[in-house]
């Protein structure tokens, strides 16, 4: 099993969810995060004082998938999340040793 973690633009969340559903991936966990990268933050000016905002709002999606699905999942996220503009984000993949479904105790691919 692999854990696919993607950092994407917030308004692409729904598109990603739908793309994954089409692959029959029916679970994922999303987190609001702040991203720092090539995409520049902005400056806010209040009453003559400048405030530099370096971190931009992003959403992190984590999806645990079986080994055979992983490439298609990465590809699907990539397509759904792409706007072509800087700041579109990244997809990271790592190995996962074990997965358990709390409700039933199922493990491995069955747990996903």
């Amino acid at each position, binding site marked *: 099993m692999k854990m696919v973690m993607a950092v994407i633009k917030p308004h692409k969340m729904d598109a990603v969810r739908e793309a994954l559903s089409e692959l029959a991936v029916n679970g994922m966990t999303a987190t609001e995060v702040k991203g720092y990268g090539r995409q520049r933050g902005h400056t*806010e*000016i*209040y*009453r*003559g*004082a*400048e*405030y*530099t*905002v370096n971190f931009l709002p992003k959403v992190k999606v984590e999806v645990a998938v079986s080994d055979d699905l992983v490439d298609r999942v990465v590809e699907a996220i990539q397509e759904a999340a792409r706007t072509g503009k800087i700041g579109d984000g990244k997809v990271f993949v790592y190995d996962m040793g074990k997965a358990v479904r709390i409700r039933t105790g199922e493990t491995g691919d069955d747990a996903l």
Partner: protein
Amino acid sequence: MLTGKKNHVVPVLAGLGAILWPGLAAAADGLNSGDTAWILVSTALVLFMTLPGLALFYAGLVRSGAVLSVLMHCFAICCVVSVLWLAVGYSLAFSDGGYANAFIGGLDKAFLAGVTTDSLSGTVPELLFFMFQMTFAIITPALIVGAYPERVKFSAVLFFSAVWLLVVYVPVTHWVWGGGWLAEMGVRDFAGGIVVHVTAGISALVFASMLGSRRGFPDHVRPPHNPGITVTGAAMLWIGWFGFNAGSALAADGNAAMAMLVTHISAATASLAWATVEWIKFGRPSVIGIVTGMVAGLATITPAAGFVGPVGGLIIGLVSGIVCQWMTAWIKHRIKIDDSLDVFAVHGVGGILGTLMVSFLALESFQGLGLAEGMGVGDHLWVQTVGVVSVAAWSAVASFVIIKIASAIFGLRVAEEDEIEGLDITAHGERSYDF
């Protein structure tokens, strides 16, 4: 605070007669239930300016870890001032001080001794005049809260506010509205340009410079954490200011209506001026900008509200929206004092501007209600300048001393790690948001 009548404005002292010898006034006028109704409401409106108006206005501008501490400052100041005003403040400000009357009132009315439900001030109960004035005494030190948020010790806030009330606010009120030396000179301050805004603005600057800047100032402080709350507070300030300025007519009549009108027009114009300058300079107008312009317009019209006409309101709004904005940047970048929520740049500068501009704009050629008989613009401007300068000087010196004492007894500033963690949790044991 006095009822200017068109063409022959009642000299300040006559207005004060009604205040100082209410029995006399009662004989002449009797209680007017309409006037009383309006001042009852105005009292509620001015308290509404501080709680929750100003408290929310300020709370939205600080970082999220110091929200409750700002609310606490405003709330506690309100309570402390109320008790002190009853104990001695009102009496020292508005009763006869005998031989020292030029500088301070007496103690005859401490704890409202001898004031009954039948006592009148002009056409309203003296008890009500006491209450109305109390709400001014509350908001003035509360304005200074904007100078020191996110880093000040709560004990220092309480000590400073209490002593400052008695040493700065009360005497200055007596000078200007209580028959003291500035009143005798003919200084005009309709609703508190000098008494409220100059005293608070100057003292805020002194406090901020003695306290030192917030960690990270000027480049790495956190931006306002919740501008929506600030706008809410601003709107309440606008509404409440009708009580402040139109209530200062102490009657429900045409003068009150005019004061309300010019107050409103100045606020609207200053808001637009501020937003327009931002639009030109930064490419977009901000909501924090527009409401700050509003406060500037309101502070600036305050000393003038009962003396100028609609066109005067427009001019005051325009000038204040531009000048005060320029000052907010100037204080930060040139003077480098972290008067965190711009108390001086907005209130101090506004109060000064309005107090001086009234000398021109009260002229009938500007639709104003006229200067006092026998006074020219030059004379009047001189008197107003004396008023501003002397009150500013007294505020600065007295604040300096009070803060030194506060510093010695309690310390002014919390430990750096408490500032980092935030005053809400470290000083009050509470968290502002737990979603």
